[in-house]
Each structure stands twice: as C-alpha cells, then as structure tokens.
C-alpha cells in the first residue's frame, strides 16, 4: 500500500531542481558581466534563490524517497504525511513571496526570514514521528539505512535549530563564537542530509541486488559510526582560520583524516570487482549509482586534501571550496537521488526501469560538463589563491578581470549541466505525474 504523497514530494523536488539550476546559471553570468541586470536581479538575490531551490531539491527528494520506502511497511500515519506535504507547500510559497518582496534577513544558505524555520522544523518532526513509529517495532534488528535515516532526521532538527542560535543574545553578541557556531551548524547540517542520502543509496543497492546482508554487515555499521563522528566533530575544517582555540581545530583535523579509511575501502572494493556486478533490473537506477561512485571517489580525494590545515590555508576562501561543495551536491547527492527516483518509478511500473537513449545521452553530457565545471572552479580557485597570498595586494578587480576566460568556461559548462539535468529530469517528471494521476 502506497499513498501518492511520496510521489508528490518527488514531483516538487524535481520542479525545485529545474528552477534552481536556472537561477544558478543566471547568477554565474554576473561573474562574466558584473553589471548585467544587476538592477532588478543582482547576484545577491539570485544566489539565495539558487541555494534555496538546490537545497529543496536534495531535501524533498530524500524525504519523498524515504516516505515511499516506509510506505511499503506498516506505515504509521498517512494523515501526518499529508499534513507534512501541505505544510511544506505552504512554507515554500511563503518563502518564495518573502524573497520576492526582498525580505531575506537570514544568513548565508538559510537566507529566508528566520520565522520560517518554525514550519520547516515542524515538518521534520512530523517526518521523524512517522519514521520512528513505523520502524520502532524492529529497532533491535535495523539495517544500517534505518539508523542513518533516523540519525539524519534527529540531527537535522538539532542543527537546523543551531543555525538559528544567533537569534539569542548570548550567541549573537559574541562575534567569534557566533560565527563558529554558524559554520558548525552548516557542516553538521550537510552531514545530516548526507545520512539521509547515503542511507537511500544503501537501501536502493540492497533492494536491487536483493542482498539484505548489504545493509547489515559490520563494515557498513563501521562506516555509519565514522560518518556520524564526522558529522559531529568534523565541521571545524571549514573554520581553521577563525580564531577559535586550537583544540577545536585539532579535533576537526584528526576526525577529517579518518575519512582516508573510506577512500581506502572504496579502492579495496573496486579491486575486488564488486562494481562489475551487472544487473539486469533497474538499469537506470544502477547507472546513476555507478556515476555517483565515480564522483565520490574524485571528491573524497579533494575533500581530504583541503581538510589538511596547511593546504586549507591556501584553498580556503577560494573557488576550490566551491568545487568541493558542487562536486558533492551535484555529482554525488544528485546522482544518488536520481537513482532513487528512477528506482521508485521502476518499482511502480517495470517499464520505467529500462535505460532510454535520451537518459543515457543526458548522463554522458552531465559527466562531461560537470568535469569541465569542476576544473574551471579549481583553476579559478588557484588563481584567486595566488592573488590572495602572492600578488602583493594588487586590486581585486584586476584579479577578477584576469579570470574572464575561466568564468566563461564556468558558464558554458554550467549551461551544459543545466541542459543535461533537463534531459534527465523531464522524462521522469512526466512519468511521476502520470503515476500520481493513476493512483
């Protein structure tokens, strides 16, 4: 028994994605033409819109997927699910209108006016109630992905609140602490959604390969705890240069380096040839997961290097950080979530499991342009770092002008990513709408 609300979440997610990339692309144009339509759509308005829609895509598709998977069990409350959906639609509309009238008095990443965090948190609580009530009976025997979802929700609620601690006098009046706590919350907030998304990828893999063991062996639990440790204590690698006490940064350095184990494990699995497993079913979902695998590998190397303080000293405050965040959100999260959405569609109707020419083409375009996009960001970052550290303080505008060609490459590859995303998204969006109607 499955309600159609999980599908509604997924539809909303895909629409957010389609809108978000348009804002991203138009914002990037202002790197090339700084004065372009700045009067009615300055970069400072486009960027928060891009970020908000981007985050909405990740969150809504993760939530929709998990609801769909929970619906296959003795689901606790369809009524709460429906309320959650309606609440988010209304919040989304409120958010959109508040941006439209220029009311963005929040902070980076969460630019919306702070009261709106209340319905957002409430939605997470409803989601949490439904998840725990549905799964509680089997808690002693949970596969790792249930743990990951449960943890993701609890920590999401905590860190989303923490990101608003600045509303309290005690935090706000103290500059360095306020800034540290703000970035702590962002680091852990992404850690929380990664719990949801990586949990989904393990779920999908174990269902497609029909290997229940996949979610239960010692190794996946080890990685779960490692991920949780990173979520809790790793954030300070974003703020190595903030004047916090050294111990906070020592802990972050140590914890971040534990991720080398993940890398080692990926390489080990690779040599074992596990990824060769060609599977006849769910072709599209498998393909997306394999793509995510590739981006995980390349991103973890970058992430590890920039978490070393001596390297971070030079890469911090440059586009190299953006290369990392875009690599993970676009390359890894988006690929896993597409895999999950195609899995959901294929689960309802087997016809949707087969790879089509257009999706195959879209995915190739996606990989090629994303690679170019990340390389452009890395080049821009190296140039900016050189300007910061070795240029003897030449004017900022001089450095920006010297980046012209890099920014053009960034825009063109961004356009490519947008086209690829549209190619991959439109067919599945249509399918989901058909499925939702026929329910």
């Amino acid at each position: 028994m499955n309600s159609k609300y999980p599908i509604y979440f997924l539809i909303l997610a895909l629409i957010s994605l389609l809108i978000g990339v348009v804002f991203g692309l138009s914002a990037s144009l202002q790197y090339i033409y700084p004065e372009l339509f700045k009067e009615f759509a300055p970069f400072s308005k486009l960027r928060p819109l891009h970020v908000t829609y981007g985050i909405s895509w990740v969150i809504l598709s993760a939530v929709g997927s998990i609801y769909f998977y929970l619906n296959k069990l003795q689901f606790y409350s369809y009524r709460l699910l429906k309320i959650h959906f309606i609440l988010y639609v209304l919040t989304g509309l409120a958010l959109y209108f508040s941006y439209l009238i220029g009311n963005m008095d929040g902070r980076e990443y969460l630019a919306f006016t702070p009261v709106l965090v209340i319905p957002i948190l409430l939605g997470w609580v409803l989601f949490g109630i439904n998840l725990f009530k549905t799964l509680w009976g089997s808690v002693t025997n949970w596969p790792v992905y249930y743990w990951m979802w449960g943890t993701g929700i609890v920590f999401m609620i905590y860190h989303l609140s923490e990101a608003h601690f600045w509303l309290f006098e005690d935090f706000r009046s103290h500059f360095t602490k306020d800034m540290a706590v703000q970035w702590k919350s962002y680091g852990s907030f992404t850690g929380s959604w990664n719990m949801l998304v990586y949990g989904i990828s393990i779920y999908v893999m174990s269902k497609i390969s029909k290997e229940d063991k996949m979610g239960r062996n010692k190794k996946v639990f080890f990685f779960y705890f490692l991920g949780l440790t990173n979520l809790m204590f790793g954030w300070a690698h974003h703020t190595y240069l903030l004047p916090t006490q050294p111990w906070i940064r020592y802990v972050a350095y140590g914890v971040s380096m534990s991720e080398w184990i993940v890398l080692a494990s990926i390489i080990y699995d690779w040599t074992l040839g596990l990824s060769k497993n060609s599977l006849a079913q769910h072709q599209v979902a498998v393909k997306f997961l394999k793509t995510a695998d590739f981006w995980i590998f390349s991103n973890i190397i970058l992430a590890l290097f920039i978490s070393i303080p001596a390297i971070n000293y030079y890469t911090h405050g440059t586009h190299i950080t953006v290369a990392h965040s875009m690599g993970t959100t676009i390359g890894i999260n988006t690929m896993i979530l597409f895999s999950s959405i195609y899995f959901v569609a294929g689960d309802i109707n087997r016809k949707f499991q087969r790879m089509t020419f257009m999706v195959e083409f879209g995915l190739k375009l996606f990989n090629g342009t994303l690679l170019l996009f990340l390389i452009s960001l890395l080049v821009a970052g190296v140039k900016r770092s050189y300007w910061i550290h070795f240029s003897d303080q030449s004017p900022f505008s001089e450095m920006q002008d010297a980046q012209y060609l890099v920014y053009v490459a960034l825009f063109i590859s961004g356009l490519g990513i947008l086209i690829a995303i549209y190619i991959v998204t439109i067919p599945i969006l249509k399918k989901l709408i058909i499925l939702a109607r026929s329910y």
Partner: protein
Amino acid sequence: MIVLVSLIVIFIIYNRLIYSSESYYPSIALSPKAIKGQNLWQSNNCWSCHQIYGLGGYLGPDLTNIYSHPNKGPDYINTFLNSGIKSMPYFNFTEVEKEAIIEYLKVIDQSGFYPNYEADIEATGWVKIKYKDE
C-alpha cells in the same frame, strides 16, 4: 548501541565547550550599533558576494580586516557603500546606517586576522594561526 550512546555523550560535552565563550579569543562583543550593522549586512545579503574570514561569496573581496587596512579604513568603506561599483547593487544607506555597517566591520576587524599572513605552517600539516592579542 554502546558506541552510539558514548558518541552522543561526548557530543553533549563537546557542544557545551563550543557554546562557551571561553573557547574563543579575544572575546569580542557586539555593541547595539554593531548589531544594527549586522542586521543590514544580513538583510542586504552582503555575504553573498563578500567574505569574512574567507567565508561567504566570491564575487567581491574579503572584508575581515578592511577597517584597519593601511590604505582603506572607515572613510574608504563609507564611500564604497552607496557607490554601486561593478556588480555591487546600488544601495541607498543613510549616514546612520553606513556608520552601523562600519561599526560592525570594526568589531570583525578586532577579532583576528584574515588572511592570516603570519601563520606558521608546520610539517605535520598543522597551521598555527596568529591571534589578535599576540
């Protein structure tokens, strides 16, 4: 389960330390005027283009130490705010608002250095940063 519980216990102790003001030096407090400046900084999304301690957007320069910069400082900032230079939007701040923003940037400036040009980079990969009161 034991692992999970111990992680959570450590996390609670850790959070208490992070939220205590002793973990940061020097301890810089925002005056009401600086808070007003911070409000303007947030509601006009200055962070989307500018960075503080290298955190923020990259369309504009970092402003951590602009206040005490030998060639820049308060008057320089004042002329920039409503200038609408390059991609920066045309703001229409009053004198009082401009002063509040400058006050905010002054507090930031007093909290430390970025870029931390005098940091020591060690062979272990560690970076020993220079603090303001050293």
